[in-house]
């Protein structure tokens, strides 16, 4: 194996200097995370109990209180965040601008999306929910479950260079919006009332596109190094030797949903539990933390990296 370590962000690909005979990849992927709120229309019933000890020490059956029931109203609200506050772009090339739209209410809803950008500087091509390379939606509406967050991309044609260019994405809930606290009695599920949340069920966010001559040439770089420790204490790469790999991802510009993947080389076995990011352990399992080992490669989601930053990933293998 003599692949170069590979770095990829925002669909651009770079190659770092060949240092080792192993590959690593830094790629972009959509991020989805759901929160849990009790669904609208849920009836919450509270019952308290009284217990009295019998004279022989046994416990008599509990005496239940009356039942008090609350029907949870439907809260309608939405949040929009820009993946990056400023995004360096290459002049005269097509650009995708990432935003996250979150249904912060407690029921499924449709959210109408709209984009504001100076048409003289950039052609608006649509909104994709299928990544930066996805097709634009025929109708700019996304359906989100309660608590669901969806990454969307605003697709722009070639962007003319000049002053920083704001790109604004707005989302409006379709079931209700307007003055916070507005109530529509009985309009929610299970006959629950529907209430416009504190954000007015509408939200927007802005990303500023900046034009940097260096953008796209060295936005991110991955450097890989290794150290070997053999059973005899030497650094010879013999059977049974433990190899510690160190992947340093250097971001010279903001990156969206950066992901590092690195296959464990043939002839070696991954050391269970050895993965870490910036010296914090990451479990091997495919769980809530930022990464894992799938049997063939380690994967670490670094997320949106807002500005020039460095992340260090480490893991170990044993030479067989």
């Amino acid at each position: 194996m003599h692949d170069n370590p590979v770095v990829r962000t925002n669909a651009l690909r770079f190659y770092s200097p060949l240092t080792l005979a192993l590959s690593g990849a830094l790629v972009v992927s959509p991020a989805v995370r759901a929160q849990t709120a009790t669904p609208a229309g849920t009836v919450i019933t509270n019952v308290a109990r009284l217990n009295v000890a019998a004279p022989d020490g046994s416990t008599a059956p509990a005496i239940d209180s009356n039942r008090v029931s609350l029907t949870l109203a439907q809260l309608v609200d939405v949040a929009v965040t820009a993946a990056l506050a400023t995004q360096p772009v290459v002049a005269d090339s097509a650009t995708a601008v990432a935003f996250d739209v979150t249904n912060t209410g407690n029921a499924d809803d449709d959210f109408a999306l709209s984009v504001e950008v100076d048409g003289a500087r950039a052609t608006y091509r649509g909104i994709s929910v299928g990544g930066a390379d996805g097709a634009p939606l025929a109708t700019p509406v996304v359906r989100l479950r309660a608590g669901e967050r969806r990454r969307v991309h605003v697709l722009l044609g070639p962007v003319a260079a000049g002053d920083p260019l704001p790109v604004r994405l707005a989302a409006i809930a379709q079931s209700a919006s307007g003055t916070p606290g507005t109530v529509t009695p009985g309009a929610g599920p299970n006959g629950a009332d529907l209430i416009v949340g504190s954000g007015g069920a509408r939200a927007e966010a802005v990303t500023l596109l900046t034009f940097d001559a260096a953008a796209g040439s060295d936005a991110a770089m991955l450097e890989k190094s290794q150290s070997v420790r053999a059973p005899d204490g030497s650094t010879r790469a013999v059977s049974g030797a433990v190899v510690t790999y160190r992947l340093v991802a250097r971001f010279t510009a903001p990156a969206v949903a950066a992901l590092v993947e690195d296959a464990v080389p043939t002839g070696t076995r991954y050391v269970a539990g050895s993965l870490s990011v910036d010296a914090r352990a990451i479990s091997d399992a495919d769980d809530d933390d930022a990464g894992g080992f799938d049997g063939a490669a380690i994967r670490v989601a670094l997320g949106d990296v807002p500005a020039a930053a460095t992340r260090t990933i480490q893991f170990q293998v044993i030479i067989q």
Partner: protein
Amino acid sequence: MSRSPVPLAAVALAAIALPAAVAAAPGPLQISSRVMVETRARAADGTTRVALAPARRVVPGDRITVVLAYRNTGTQPLAGVTLDNPLPRGLTYHAPAPGSAAPAVSLDGRRYAALDQLRVALPGGGTRAALPDDVTHVRWRLDRPLTAGGGGEFAFQAVLH
């Protein structure tokens, strides 16, 4: 220390395995619960009055106060009285209500203690201090027999999530 000789009708309830619906029938011991929300009213002098009103319309994030009222309507004192409130799904314990004694709390419905005495086991081994979010049950124990005609109230705050 004096103890009531026979806890009267409470024992009668114990002897007969009554259906739950009948168990709630009025006996010498009565308990009622009500759920209140904080309402804020701006007074003419510019101050804000906080009052409790029955909860009608609630959304996730609202804080409510659960008030438990108990009374011994019999003619004999009753010893060993406890009030239990398992937290229903959708409610997270917050704190004792102002003016109420703090309840003992439980993370499993079996072991009760003050919140700062409880710890939560972590999946990877080790433990951490219990947080209000971890509480599944609250309980108050009357440390003295409840006199005939006596009663009182306990209350706790909870958050809808």
